[in-house]
């Protein structure tokens, strides 16, 4: 059974059809890239999976459970985690508190009120900050981080709850070349613990780290396959590469 199965997902905004009967499958441990020209529906598909948008048609199953109409919180508790395209860290809080905030989401109310899980979660917060190279920035306010660091903090927050499926919407957006390379190095080891779907414009980045690619065009799936298969695909070359 696949980890995530989206079947015939359609999303319309008024007269505009952003997704048209899209089938999308993610297997356990897969690093799945989602690419396509601007406006092809990549981010919309990711939002439909995460619950930020409800599909107009089709079904989405996660670990065998139908989550088509589930709220974002229900999906998060089921094991889905989303890193937004636009960074949405909590600027007034410290880097440490941003991660703690994400990590303590499943603590019961009484535990939160009496701060019973703070000490237990401390180790995990530091571990994640270490993995994302933010340990020396732990006490800094999130607002003062560079754009690249904020992106890493976003990934740290998305990873905090140990999701089964991590959805990353343009994780390298606005990053320098060095930061992109470092982000790639950070993401590859994560496949040991979860599957990842990445929406990205940087094809070199995607080629280096993904096992499987799905190409979207005008709200439809153009092709799905390994990186080599996609590179050889005539349809992709004709439709996608000429428009990017």
């Amino acid at each position, binding site marked *: 059974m696949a980890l995530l199965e989206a079947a015939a997902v359609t999303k319309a905004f008024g007269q505009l059809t952003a997704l048209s009967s899209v089938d999308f499958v993610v297997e356990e441990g897969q690093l799945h890239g989602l690419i396509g020209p601007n406006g092809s529906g990549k981010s919309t598909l990711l939002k439909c999976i*995460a*619950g*930020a948008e409800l599909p107009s048609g089709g079904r989405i199953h996660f670990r065998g459970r139908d989550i088509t109409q589930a*709220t*974002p*919180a229900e999906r*998060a*508790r089921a094991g889905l*985690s*989303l890193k*937004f395209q636009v960074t*949405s860290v*909590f*600027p*007034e*809080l*410290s880097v*440490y*508190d941003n991660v*703690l*905030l*994400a990590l*303590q*989401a*499943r*603590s019961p*109310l009484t*535990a*939160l*009120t*009496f*701060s019973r*899980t*703070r*000490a*237990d979660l*401390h*180790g995990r*917060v*530091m*571990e994640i*900050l*270490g993995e994302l190279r933010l*340990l*020396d*920035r*732990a*006490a*800094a306010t999130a607002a003062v981080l560079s754009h690249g660091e904020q992106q890493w903090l976003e990934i740290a*927050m998305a990873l905090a*709850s140990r999701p089964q499926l991590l959805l990353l919407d343009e994780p390298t957006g606005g990053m320098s070349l060095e930061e992109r390379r470092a982000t790639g190095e950070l993401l590859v080891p994560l496949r040991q613990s979860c599957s990842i779907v990445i929406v990205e414009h940087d094809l070199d980045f995607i080629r280096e780290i993904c096992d499987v690619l799905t190409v979207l065009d005008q709200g439809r799936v153009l092709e799905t396959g390994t990186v080599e298969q996609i590179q050889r695909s005539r349809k992709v070359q004709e439709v996608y590469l000429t428009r990017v």
Partner: protein
Amino acid sequence: MARAQWWRPSPGTIVAALEVLLLSVFALLPLALQHFWVIFVTRVLILALLALSFDLVWGFAGIMSFGQALFFGAAGYVVALLARDAGVTSVFVVLPAALAVGLALAFLVASFLLLGRNPPSLTFVALGTLTGSYAGDRLARGWYYLGGQNGIPSIPPMTAGPVQITEGVAYYYLALAFLIAVYAACRFLVGSQFGLALAGIRINEARMAFFGYHVQLLKAVVFSVAGAVAGIAGGLYAFHEGFVWPNMLGVILSTQIVLYTLFGGVGTLIGAVIGVIAIEIVSFVLADAYPTVWPVILGVLLLVIILFRPSGLISLFVPRRTRVGVFGLTARRPRRIPGEVDGAA
């Protein structure tokens, strides 16, 4: 350089110093004041409780409530009825009853306004609470059993066993004890992991849902807790004044509570207390000097302060909006646990 920094206390230290200063002044004040002023300051202490309830919902959870007077007034009416119709005046019954009324009514209002499937907008909650406050006022005015326009007069004094707690020094210290207890509880709450979750909701509610938080439930909980605080204040106020009347439930008092907190400084707890002290003293002085036009002068003064000090009077003491809620690394350091990564900031 190091010496200069040593002399510059952190905003958190300044807030703590203000808290100690105010506590000391309040503790000693009855020794220096005449009876009239003791009664006046007791009223300030009770209103400070009410302002804390608003600061909890707006300053920390980002819920704009224009209805805190509803919980205050409803609790006041219930304890007044208990005293009038059942002869119950024991402090050990009436104040828990006032707390329970505030809690239950606030949870009921939260169930309607906050616990729907879709997150409500700020405006919806503000108008909903305002409507609740207005409806409470109208209900009290029109219901003969509640005394109509005149309210319920001549409430017998609160008792503790055979002792009557009448207005004056005893009541003052009772109100102060509740203010200290509630303030400490609020401080504990906003500095806890729950407080961190409230901060997250205030900053970016939608993002919190994607972490898996039951956002609306957390908001309903803090709204209910604030209702309980307003309820305690209402119970204290009813016995202190000796009567209750519809204005205790209405939109004028609800708006006044918002002004107290904005004037003192939102999201700091101590700012709400300072706001009540400042507005009540200025109102008294102005009313004495200009019996006719004092509300206009007060209104202009409030506008000027809010225009030039949008963070409230607290910003005179701390350079930027400072909250008493500190979490994670800045809170007390968690104990070291096995496998902890070294090198933390």
